């Protein structure tokens, strides 16, 4: 049961991580006029983070069980994610 929503949680976590890593102020740390492996630091950093994010998303989505996990979550287990929305509905 616990694994069912893992994929969703991982995706949300990756999204937040991406926002954090790819925008200032964290960007400023790597905003240096030096080169690493012959490549400007910021440039390298951005592409490495970008590639890593893509790889992690691919891994999260394509690993075994993720399909059922994602598919089921909205058809058969509405109770889990719907409770806050139901609350909103009664407010509206």
């Amino acid at each position, binding site marked *: 049961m616990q694994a069912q929503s893992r994929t969703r949680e991982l995706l949300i976590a*990756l999204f937040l991580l991406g926002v954090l890593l*790819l925008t200032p102020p964290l960007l400023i740390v790597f905003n240096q006029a030096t080169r690493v492996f*012959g490549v*400007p630091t910021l440039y390298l950093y951005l592409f490495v983070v970008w590639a890593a994010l*893509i790889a992690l998303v691919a891994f999260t989505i394509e690993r075994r069980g993720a399909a059922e996990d994602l598919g089921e979550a909205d058809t058969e287990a509405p109770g889990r994610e719907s409770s806050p929305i139901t609350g909103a509905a009664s407010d509206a």
Partner: protein
Amino acid sequence: MLSGPVIITVAFLYLCLLFAIAYYGDKRADQGRSLIANPSIYALSIAVYCTSWTFYGSVGRAASTGVDFLPIYLGPTLTFIAGWFVIRKIIRISKVNRTTSIADFIASRYGKSFQLGGLVTVIAVVGILPYISLQLKAISTSFSLLLHYPDIVMPTSSASAFFLQDTAFYVALFMAVFAILFGTRHIDASERHEGMVAAIAFESVVKLVAFLTVGLFVTFGVYGGLGDIFARVEASGALSRLFTIDGVAQHTSWITLTLLAMGAIVVLPRQFQVMVVENVDERHLKKAMWLFPLYLLLINIFVLPIAFAGLLMFPQGGVDADTFVLTVPMKQQQPLLALIAFIGGLSAATGMIIVETVALATMVSNDLVMPLLLRVGRLHLSERRDLPGILLTIRRVTIILVVLLGYAYVRLIGESYALVTIGLVSFAAAMQFVPAIIGGIYWKGATKAGAVAGLTGGFLVWIYTLLLPSFARSGWIAQSFIENGPLGLAALKPYALFGLAGLDPIAHATIWTMLVNVGLFVGISLVTSQSIIERSQAVQFVDIFKRSADHGRVWRGRATIGDLRQLLVRFMGEARANAAFARLEGVRGRRLYDQGPVDSEIVSYSERQLAGAIGAASARIMVASVLREEMHDIDEVVQILDEASQLVVYSRQLEQKSRELEAVTTDLRAANERLQELDRMKDDFVATVSHEVRTPLTSIRSFGEILRDNPDLSPDERQEFITIIVQESERLSRLINDILDLAKMEAGTSEWHMADVAPKAVIEQALAASAGLFPKTRHIAITSKIADDLPAIRADADRLTQVIVNLVSNAVKFCAEQDGWIRLEAWREAGFLRVDVTDNGLGIARHDQAKIFERFQQAGNTLTDKPQGTGLGLPICREILRRFGGDIWVESEPGKGATFSFRVPVAASSAETGAATVVAASA
């Protein structure tokens, strides 16, 4: 080798190949073996996001500001990581509602609002124009450059040339035709365009391969790898500033560009088209979530190396950085590579123009023109059968117009902007849709008024902070508009509104438009309320994963299934309409007969089918027209209310009528009672007359028999009896005379000799005549008091005499036995002659006072007391006086005598002015 004909032939062959792919894609779709039902194709089609902007513009941007071309691709990556929650929700909602465009989506969410759909369409068309112009500029520039190979000659400003000699004009025309052939080829242009998507996916491969080829050649062919390029840049000194981003302005810019791109990837009309409308299966999104970002990463790897290569190769400037992808291979004498780059750029531009114009054309036809035409009742459009043709025509005209407007924008702004800057203007416009969409799918309380206010406000600020300044830069508006603000108001400077200076214009505009847009959207939503249909749509959108599409449908049914089938046939054609109904039959597991009544499920199903063809707003109008007054939109609810209030008025009238009727009935009942009373009185009358007549007759007969049977009666006795007989006969004849008299008067047949009469003489004469009536046995004093100034009256003198004699004889009969007296008074009283006859008799009981003027009605008990007179005197008096225009009444208290009074109006001839009116009034 690169002559004009060669370039044109290659380009033409490439476009033919595209067309073949599209044709094949459509063929496969018709066979039911979809070419694009594949997550990789889906991801590649989304890469239509990468246009000339990416292909040429990114390098230009990188050459001037370094790495900040990247947020445009990082933003979509972030959105796609969260895509399973946001994009999939939009896809699901759109599939359920059969949404055809972004305008349709927003209109649908806010109560299938026709106004909102139109507003979104207008914003989209105006906002996207710069973006299309960017593509046209890129193609014409690259074509002109290639034409001069091996020289590198920057094309002269197109604004100076006559448009017929302008390459960009022909490029625009060609693109428009191409888009029409692609997007509006089918008669059923309504649904998805599988062939187009297949071609777009192919184009994505072409542009990626072309760009990577150029990138690899530059990096590893010309230079010794990435490190070599960056080392040379660092060595050159000045250029190494591009390695970093600096200052608050650039950080703000970075954030706003990321945000713009995050939104644009979803709300740009063409992205919505390929990602949502053309989506075959929402599970494809899963692979696209990482494949599309990967595509973006690959196509961006060599942007910076190419940019630096260009900067290193053309250190003296003079070559537009936006053309480095082409000019660097040209500089290296690589015609084939240059041609590959050109084809790559062409594919990037054509893909964008085709999908964008088709998406805009769908919006314009479905959400702007059709609803307008359908609302013009005169056209009877809803009854025409050639609607698909009309739809296609509208779309084709729209495509041509949009492309030509894009061309006009290119000429207008000329060379004053880099490609990316032009594109960002469009991004900022598209961004205006984000609050309405995100708010719409997650917040049920968002109202139509809020969405309209937010969109309008944001769009106006966009015009002010981005569109107008671009006009100013091109010289259409005075340059001082930017530098000093309008009319010199520094606070209103379009690039530094209210003193928000020091920012990049795009970041500045994004901040202000979003502030206004989100502020108005949320604020107005909080203070306005939703209509019924808005509310049901809101719930359906927000709770799409929990509810079926048919929930909250406000509908009542009367139309038949046949009506709906006909409607679908008209818009979708026989075959597809029947197929749609067959599917529904399959789902419901029973046959749908044309005569059958529709239920809400069939109605919403039909409406969704139709929405796929003509958009939600139009579909709603059409279905409503078939169901006749059965859809509760607001107009109709108002109409129903009108009808209801008319009913209320009507029922009030009815109520009043029935009240009047009741009153009449009461009158009638009273009249009826009176009639019954009269009838009873007539019976009484007959009985009384018989009784009255029989009494004297009986005594006459008795005395007659005595005289006949006793011949030996003494003469005295005989004399006495004969006297009685004579008296009784007189009484009898008097009675009969009275009856006849009254009957005549009541029937109006008696003769009247009306004349102006002097009453004093008549009264005195009548008193004299009455003297004979006084019995000798009793002493009765009679006094009279007659005024001298009695006016003349209009009357019959004999009748007047009769009245007075009657009253006096009455008084004589009833006055006191001892010391009886009678008083007669006559005087003038406000236009009347008034006569009172008073006696000191027994008086008349109150309940008898009205009765005594009826025939044969005498005060007291007529059965026990001996009747005094005929009982007709007073009725005769009343009849006479009424004839004269007067009346008669009695005032009496039992035991204190009675006063009979009558009055007669004064004759008109002798009346003074005051009296005359009284006569007239009483007449």
